[in-house]
């Protein structure tokens, strides 16, 4: 306890500093002016001024997902808070630890429809892990520290702290994090050892095992990722990763089958369908992964490692639930393997032969012969080839480009891939890149974007220029909302209702207007040169890559279909129409 009472605003700043926060993404307004005043008077915390509050949350997400630390947002009441809602929902869906401080009208005005008042705790209740309205300045320090604990413990997520203006002015006592413990919240991190043994027996007996890893491994930390790779190699099983899990196992590892799911690889999806033991680690059997549920991996025993008990048996009935932290659970599995491992030497040659056959389908092939037009896949292959030595951080927007990026960019390390998986938020990538670049000032940070998505938060170019962040926006410009158009072709007779953008800006001029650099490329022969220009130019760059307007993203499991019914290309599309049940799915 500090001896002298200090203002609520000072308590907020002191708590942030004591929690190890070095940067806050925010936007000022009337209700949070006291905090901005306290910020002004200190030097421990940096503030990054975004251009819209939604951008602040995505920036904090990018910061959090590239560092493993908690991202912090500071916005004002009313519209400041409501603008943050999309980002909070995004963080909840993808389990990203974020603290969002929102201003609120003074306590005596709450409920009076005061200027810039919104029921922030009411609005954000379903889109946060937890939220608080602080009515007493002496509760403030406790709430701040509790919020950090909640945001990063168990399954991480966003926490909102709503701060009435009078509480920020009031004087109160500060207490440090060491004095605070949440009264009841203690997530289980260690699974039942008996269950671990059960799992090991299943794995040892398996003839066609498959490891299916997700974002939970990355959330569990770098050590958990290393253990995950060790485990996969130890049991010598093929491994697929979800969109959120990319990087948990190095893409170059021979056990890696590529991404699973709707736009996952042929080999990953077939392996999922045909395996006899599935080991899900930090993944949640999302509908983008499972395809049609009653045809999902029909003959496998399923082991599910997850820290969130509500993930177990939510969509898919599992045989061995292991409720616990991925890292701790993997350590137990690794420790027990020596004893459980099968003594026979024949291994799983048949299973690997199957997998090699599936790999042989070369499911990511595309028309490589085109000299007149840039294929989006080609653009990403070249981007990967010319940048991977720089160990880049990749963010994406949402749509076809996102799926191509997941397919064609090979991630060797965790924490280098930031994408909006659960919520699918267009406009995520550019502000997320702001957060990543702030956390890693010297790194190469690329937002792989579509021209439609990037326009949803293009105002953050202004933030990028203000802080001289050398973010690279790599736009695959096909002038369509490509994924919308692809679905209109698949489900709606090719009637392109509102999916064409008729008045796109000149992205080169747009970049220049913000004070950044821009270049447009249309000729495949000039692509490498343009990418080099993008990397070598010291500041922010928008590279507008004009790509084939009509290219579609394959392979694809259409809605309502099973893993073994995937489409490899447009020629399959005509042969396998989408079922009526599939039509209503998203």
């Amino acid at each position, binding site marked *: 306890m500090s001896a002298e009472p200090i203002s609520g605003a000072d308590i907020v700043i002191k708590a942030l500093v004591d929690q190890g926060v070095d940067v806050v993404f925010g936007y000022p307004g009337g209700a949070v002016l006291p905090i901005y005043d306290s910020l002004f008077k200190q030097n421990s915390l940096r503030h990054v001024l975004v251009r819209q509050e939604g951008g602040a949350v995505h920036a904090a997400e990018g910061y959090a997902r590239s560092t493993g630390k908690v991202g912090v947002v500071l916005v004002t009441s009313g519209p400041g808070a409501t603008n943050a809602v999309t980002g909070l929902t995004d963080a909840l869906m993808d389990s990203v630890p974020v603290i969002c401080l929102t201003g609120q009208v003074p306590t005596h005005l709450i409920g009076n429809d005061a200027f810039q008042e919104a029921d922030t*705790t*009411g609005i954000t*209740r*379903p889109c946060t*892990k*937890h*939220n608080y*309205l602080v009515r007493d300045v002496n509760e403030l320090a406790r709430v701040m520290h509790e919020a950090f604990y*909640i945001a990063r413990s168990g399954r991480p997520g966003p926490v909102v702290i709503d701060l009435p203006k009078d509480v920020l002015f009031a004087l109160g006592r500060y207490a440090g994090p060491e004095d605070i413990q*949440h*009264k*009841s*919240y203690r997530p289980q991190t260690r699974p039942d050892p008996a269950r671990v043994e059960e799992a090991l027996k299943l794995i040892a007996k398996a003839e066609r095992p498959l490891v299916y890893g997700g974002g939970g491994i990355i959330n569990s930390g770098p050590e958990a990722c290393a253990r995950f790779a060790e485990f996969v190699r130890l049991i010598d099983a093929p491994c697929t990763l979800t969109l959120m899990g990319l990087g948990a196992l190095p893409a170059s590892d021979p056990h890696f089958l590529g991404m699973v799911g709707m736009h996952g690889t042929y080999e990953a999806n077939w392996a999922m369908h045909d395996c006899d033991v599935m080991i899900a680690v930090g993944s949640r059997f999302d509908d983008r992964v499972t395809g049609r549920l009653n045809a999902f991996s029909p003959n496998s025993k399923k082991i599910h490692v997850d820290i*969130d*008990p*509500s993930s*177990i*048996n*939510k969509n898919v*009935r599992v045989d061995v639930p292991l409720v616990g932290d991925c890292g701790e659970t993997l350590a137990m599995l690794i420790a027990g393997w020596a004893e459980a491992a099968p003594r026979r030497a024949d291994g799983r040659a048949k299973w690997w032969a199957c997998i090699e056959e599936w790999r042989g389908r070369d499911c990511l092939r595309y028309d490589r012969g085109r000299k007149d037009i840039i294929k989006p896949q080609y653009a990403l292959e070249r981007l990967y080839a010319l940048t991977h030595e720089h160990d880049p951080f990749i963010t994406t927007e949402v749509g076809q480009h996102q799926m191509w990026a997941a397919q064609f960019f090979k991630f060797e390390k965790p924490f280098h891939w930031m994408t909006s998986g659960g919520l699918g938020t267009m406009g995520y990538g550019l502000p997320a890149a702001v957060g990543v670049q702030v956390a890693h000032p010297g790194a190469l940070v690329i937002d792989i974007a579509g021209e439609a998505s990037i326009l949803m938060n293009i105002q953050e170019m202004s933030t990028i220029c203000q802080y001289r962040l050398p973010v690279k926006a790599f736009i695959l410009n096909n002038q369509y909302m490509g994924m919308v158009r692809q679905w209109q072709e698949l489900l709606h007779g090719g009637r392109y209702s509102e999916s064409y953008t008729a008045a796109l800006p000149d992205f080169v001029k747009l970049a220049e207007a913000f004070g950044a650099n821009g270049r447009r490329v249309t000729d495949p022969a000039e692509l490498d040169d343009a990418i080099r220009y993008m990397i070598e130019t010291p500041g922010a760059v928008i590279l507008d890559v004009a790509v084939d307007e009509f290219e579609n993203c394959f392979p694809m499991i259409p809605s309502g279909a099973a893993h073994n019914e995937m489409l490899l290309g447009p020629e399959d599309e005509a042969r396998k129409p989408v079922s009526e049940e599939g039509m209503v799915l998203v």
Partner: protein
Amino acid sequence: MADIERHTIAVLVDNEPGILARVVGLFSGRGYNIDSLTVAEVDRSNSLSRITVVTSGTPMIIEQIKAQLSRVVPVRKVQDLTDEGPFVERELVLIKMVGKGEARIESLRLADVFRARVVDSTTESFVFEITGSSEKLNAFIGLMEPLGLVEISRTGAVAIARGTSHF
């Protein structure tokens, strides 16, 4: 489609602002049913409230409901009374009867059979109070309907496990 089961679930929560909204929002947001829900503080010194919720769903949904409830930060304990052995379930109803003559007398007679108490009376009305299982109360209400029943107020079920086991 698996069978729909009815479960009575007791939830011990920190009595803090918004906790009821959190629980109710969880049910509506995820499309679960609430057949009835009651809440009151049960431990003043530790500021704990007990929510009793009667819900219905497939076994998989019931399991999800419990897991989702446990995930709410201020939730201390979740107990599925239906699953965990015998329990006592009670509900209280206030029933207003309006009328004169034979029907009025008959309602009083039936109330006596059901051990309902008269808690308010005028020359033209009664308010009965009755406690019991939801089935018993439904039976009583059914009998009262033709006798001048004009208004019902029910608490919803509260429940507790039988025997020595406790939260």
